Each structure stands twice: as C-alpha cells, then as structure tokens.
C-alpha cells in the first residue's frame, strides 16, 4: 500500500484497475541486416507506414465526430509527417546504404526531426516535439508488429496511469471504460486535466514517478477531490472509499433532482450559478446540469488545436456555435489568456525566466495588437447572435484596462465603417486575479460593467505559491485570510459601484466555500458544471442571514486552519453526506 499526493485536477473518487501506458522509449538497438534482406526491411517500413496512416485517418474521423473538427485537426500534422518525402527517403536510404533494420532507421530519422524541432526558437513549433514522439511510437509499434496498446477497445473498467497523456491517446480512449487518470507530470491546464474535466472523471496529476511504482493490473484509488492516489490500498481504505463511492452515487441522484430547481436561499435570495467551459460543445452539458449561463468561456482551445493562429472566422464560428447552444443565456467570453502554463507560449522567441510574471494574457494581447483585434472583431460580430459579454483577463493596472478598451473601440469603429452588424451596448468586464487589481477595485469598478474574480491566480499571486510545484503546493490555500480580505473588498467595491461581481475560480465550485462566498455578498458563482448541483444544494439549504454570520465569523480568524476547520463544521451541518 502506498499513498501518493499530487494535484487534483478533476473531482471524484474511483477505485479501479490500473493500465500503465508505456511511456519509456522503446529501446531500438542498432542491428545490421544482410544485403538480401534490404528489400524485405523496406517493405516492413512501407507496410508500417500504410498501417499507421490508416490508423490515423480512422482516429481523425472518430475524434472529429466525438469532439470537434479543431481537435481532429491535431492529426493532420501527424498524417502530413507520415506522407512526407523527408521521412520516407532518408529511412529507405538508411536501410539500403547502412544496412540497418527498419526500426532503427525510423528511430534515427525521427529523432533527428525531434531535435530539429527542439532547436526551434518558436515555442509553438518546439512544442510539436511531443507529436514527433507520438508519431515515432506509432510507426515503431507497427514496424515491430506490436499493436499500440489500444485504449479504444477495453472490455473492463480501468484507470489510466501515464507519464503524461499524449493527445492521440486521450482522443482515442474508450469513454465507457476509462474511469480516471493519474499522471507523473502536468498541471491544472494540462491536456490530461482538460480532457478529464470534459469527460467528468477524476484525475490527479503531478505525482512524480507514479508510473515507476504502479504495474498494470494493480488496484488503484484515484481521489480527484483531495489530489491523492493510493496504490494497492489495504482493506480499511477500500471499505472507506467504497462507502464514499456509494454515497457519491446516492448524492448524484439527489443532485439530479435539484437540477431544475432555482438556486435560491431559504429567505428568498436568488443566486446565479453559471458554468466555466473550454469548448462550445460543453454548453449542452452545462445547461443540462442547471447552469444559468456561461460565466467563463476560455478561448484558448482555438490556439491549441490548430497549427497556425486561428483566423477571425475560426473565432466567430466557435462563438456562434456556443451562442446557438446557449439559446439566449449569457456567454462571458474571456479574451486570450495564453502564456505561462497554458499550452504554448505562442510566438515567443526567448523563453521567459518567469512566465507567470511575464508576457502573458492581456499583456501579450496588448503586445500583439493585430491578433488581439482579430479576437475582438469576432466577439463583437457574434454579439448579434446572443447575450455576449467580454472579459479581459490579468488586468493589473488601469492603463492596461484603458488600452484594451481603446482597442475594443477601434474595432467597433472598424465594424461600423464596414457596415457589419454588431451590438454596441454589450457589458465589458475584467477579471480580478492580480492583487494590485483587487486592491484598486474601487477605481476599476468605475470603468467596467462587471468583475469576475479568478481565485486560482489571485491565490497564487497573493501567496506567492505555484501550486503545480509539488514542494510548495501545500501552501496554496484560498482560505488564507489575506486572500479572503481581498475577496471581501472586491465584492464590496462592486456593490458600492453597482456592478455585478462573480467568482469564476475553482473556489466557486467548492462546497466548502459556498456559505462564505454567499455571506460575503456574492451573487454569481461560475464553476465546472459537475459542481453546480452541490453548490446549489447548499444555497437552497441555508439563509443569507446565516451565511452572513458565517462570513463575519470567518473574517475574524487569523489563520487558514481556523477558517477551514470552521467552514468544514458549518458545511457539514448542511450536507453531512459530502464531508
């Protein structure tokens, strides 16, 4: 039995059998062949290429159906490389001239590709190294006659243990049998985390050398709520977690019944519960779970899915899709928040020493005005299709906000000159996720229509903790009195200036904080849609008066320990089954 602590990136608990994905490179020895074997080796290579192409075409088609055309497009690059004469010719000539095996020739040529990519100054291209490794694995498996361990056709339930999940692995996996993920590396916004949340299965990342300690067939508990993985649990733990799983199911059923009931306190205060999404397709699930709208629509997937920067039309189509699915409900579109940990530091020439404090998010947009304008044009054009709101992320000074709004004005004028239809009066808001913005909320509130507090970054910047760094992740705590003071002041500043305030960080979806946020006067909560039910249940079970008392008490504490302890006690009184 072994307990490993990582970062929970998708909630839920599962007990299941492990499938460990072979992450280590296949060791390919340099083996020589006889001259008369040359043709046979070339044929083996050709067959493997053909087979890989068939697999990839199938995969692309399947993924396009299951997710979207953008994600299916990831494989265009793979297919392009497979068809590339720069791959075919050097491999054949290595087999012919150096008399080496097909697998060795493939490995050498693709390693050369990989190092070419790695040397690229463009971060986007440098990141494609992972795709090259993916391609290498696929061809080698086919050359050697090994079927790539197919997660698409499982006959039993399992959890996937890997160093990091490759895009092709996650896209192909069988949604009915995969019950959870646990990986050695990764963070909140890693590919694994995004896919797990989209599938609604628990995931824990950043577990160090988990793959070395687990063998396929081991029993594994993945606790995505607490960020814990237990390898070969003992009987007590099994009983405890089975019990927990069983309770969860009961709760799920109860929460389902809540779906169509309003989020209103016992004393009649209506709260708006909204959802955070990555892809337009997620709207349906969010609405089905009772979301009153989308409080945070991240637009980064457009940049992640294609090899080149998305065009204005790409943006527009995605927004139009989301709005259609929302059927009149509000959609808060966050402008590009790329940089730091997000997928790629697009167009970056020199790696930043400190990307979290660097050229990310709104800062990057203000340095790339043509790109920023493309996004804004697409958003403004979409305003005639539904209830669109724009939100600027990572604002740290008034000048930034004013600049961003000025550029938005330019875009409005351009659209007007071109005679394109749009709505002028849409709400423009900002995220509060930097302490400087929180401290100056009063000044900011006069220049925007709404605030949305991004607690993840606000906690990170206030406490100076990178929670993807396992050595200090324990210090990351939204209950820290310094963070709570900022939260309280931002909500107050919003109310005083009559603008709406929401929380769209993870804190909004954690039942532990619902009473507190309610008591601080928050009226809009935006969260991952699976969390809506529980938060709604708490809201419906309490009064605003009681929540205010809780908040007053919490604000009198001077340590996060006291805060957490008290909130746990109070929440347990309302929903004992969750804690």
């Amino acid at each position, binding site marked *: 039995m072994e307990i490993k602590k990582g970062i929970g990136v998708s909630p839920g608990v599962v007990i299941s059998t492990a499938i460990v994905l072979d992450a280590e490179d296949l060791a390919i020895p340099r083996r020589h062949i006889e001259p008369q074997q040359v043709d046979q080796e070339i044929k083996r290579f050709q067959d493997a290429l053909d087979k890989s192409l068939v697999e990839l075409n199938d995969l692309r088609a399947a993924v396009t159906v299951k997710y979207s055309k953008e994600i299916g497009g990831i494989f*265009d*690059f793979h297919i*392009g*490389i497979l*068809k*590339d*004469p*720069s*791959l075919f010719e050097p491999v054949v000539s290595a087999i012919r001239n150096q008399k080496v095996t097909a697998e060795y020739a493939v490995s050498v040529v693709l390693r050369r*590709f990989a190092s*070419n*990519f790695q040397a*690229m100054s*463009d971060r986007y*291209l440098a990141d494609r190294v992972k795709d090259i490794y993916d391609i290498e694995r696929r061809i080698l498996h086919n050359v050697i006659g090994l079927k790539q361990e197919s997660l698409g056709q499982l006959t039993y339930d399992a959890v996937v243990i890997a160093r990091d999940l490759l895009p092709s692995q996650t896209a192909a996996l069988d949604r009915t049998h995969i019950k959870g993920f646990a990986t050695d590396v990764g963070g909140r916004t890693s590919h694994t985390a995004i896919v797990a949340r989209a599938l609604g299965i628990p995931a824990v990342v950043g577990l160090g050398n988990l793959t070395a300690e687990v063998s396929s067939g081991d029993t594994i508990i993945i606790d995505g709520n607490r960020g814990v993985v237990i390898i070969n649990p003992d009987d007590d733990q099994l009983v405890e977690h089975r019990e927990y799983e069983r309770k969860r199911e009961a709760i799920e059923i109860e929460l389902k019944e809540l779906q169509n009931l309003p989020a209103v306190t016992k004393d009649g205060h209506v709260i708006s519960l909204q959802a955070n999404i990555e892809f337009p397709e997620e709207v349906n699930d969010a609405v089905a779970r009772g979301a009153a709208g989308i409080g945070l629509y991240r637009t980064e997937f457009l940049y992640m899915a294609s*090899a080149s920067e998305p*065009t*204005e039309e790409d943006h527009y189509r995605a927004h139009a899709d989301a709005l259609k699915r929302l059927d009149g409900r509000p959609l808060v579109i966050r402008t590009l928040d790329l940089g730091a940990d997000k997928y790629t530091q697009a167009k970056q020439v020199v790696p930043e020493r400190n990307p979290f404090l660097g050229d990310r998010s709104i800062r990057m947009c203000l340095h790339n005005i*043509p790109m920023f304008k493309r996004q804004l044009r697409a958003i403004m054009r979409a305003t005639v299709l539904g209830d669109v709101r724009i939100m600027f992320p990572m604002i740290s000074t008034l000048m930034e906000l004013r600049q961003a709004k000025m550029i938005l004005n330019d875009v409005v004028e351009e659209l007007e000159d071109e005679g394109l239809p749009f709505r002028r009066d849409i709400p423009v808001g900002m995220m509060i996720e930097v302490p400087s913005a929180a401290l100056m909320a009063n000044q900011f509130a006069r220049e925007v229509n709404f605030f949305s507090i991004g607690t993840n970054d606000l906690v990170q910047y206030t406490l100076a903790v990178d929670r993807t760094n396992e050595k200090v992740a324990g210090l990351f705590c939204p209950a820290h009195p310094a963070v709570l003071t900022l939260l309280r002041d931002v909500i107050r500043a919003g109310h005083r200036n009559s603008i709406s305030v929401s929380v769209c960080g993870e804190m909004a979806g954690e039942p532990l904080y619902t009473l507190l946020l309610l008591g601080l006067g928050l009226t809009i909560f935006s969260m991952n849609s699976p969390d809506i039910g529980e938060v709604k249940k708490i809201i419906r079970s309490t009064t605003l008066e009681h929540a205010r008392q809780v908040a007053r008490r919490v604000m009198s504490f001077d340590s996060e320990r006291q805060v957490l302890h008290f909130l746990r006690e109070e929440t347990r009184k309302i929903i004992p089954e969750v804690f």
Partner: protein
Amino acid sequence: MQFVDLANRFQSQVRVDTCSGEPVQADGKSVMQMIMLVAIEGTKLRITAEGGDAQAAVDTLAGLVESWLGDD
C-alpha cells in the same frame, strides 16, 4: 499543411525559398521541410516548380499564399 496538400496534387517538383540569399530550399511537398523554412508572417517567399504542370503548380500555390495575406 494546406500548402503541402495542394503541392502534392501536382506532378512537378515544387521548391520554396525565402529570398533571403541563404541557399535554404524546401521541398514544397514536405511538411517537415516547409516547417524548417520557418516562414513567419512578413517573410518573402519564392515558389519554383519543374515539370509538366509547373506553371499551374506555381500559379495555384502563389494564389493560396496570397489568399492568406488577404485574411489580415
């Protein structure tokens, strides 16, 4: 990717370089070589073709590149 797909529809050999005076030429039918060319926005490209349908290849590919410029 679109460029390479299109180039592959012609029989002629397609070469692309960046007019930078460097002797770097990419095979227009190779994703890998085209990527290594690292043509960022604003780079001048020269497309040459050799073979039976050379003229059509150059015209079509140049048209594609021009249509990208039109996007901005």
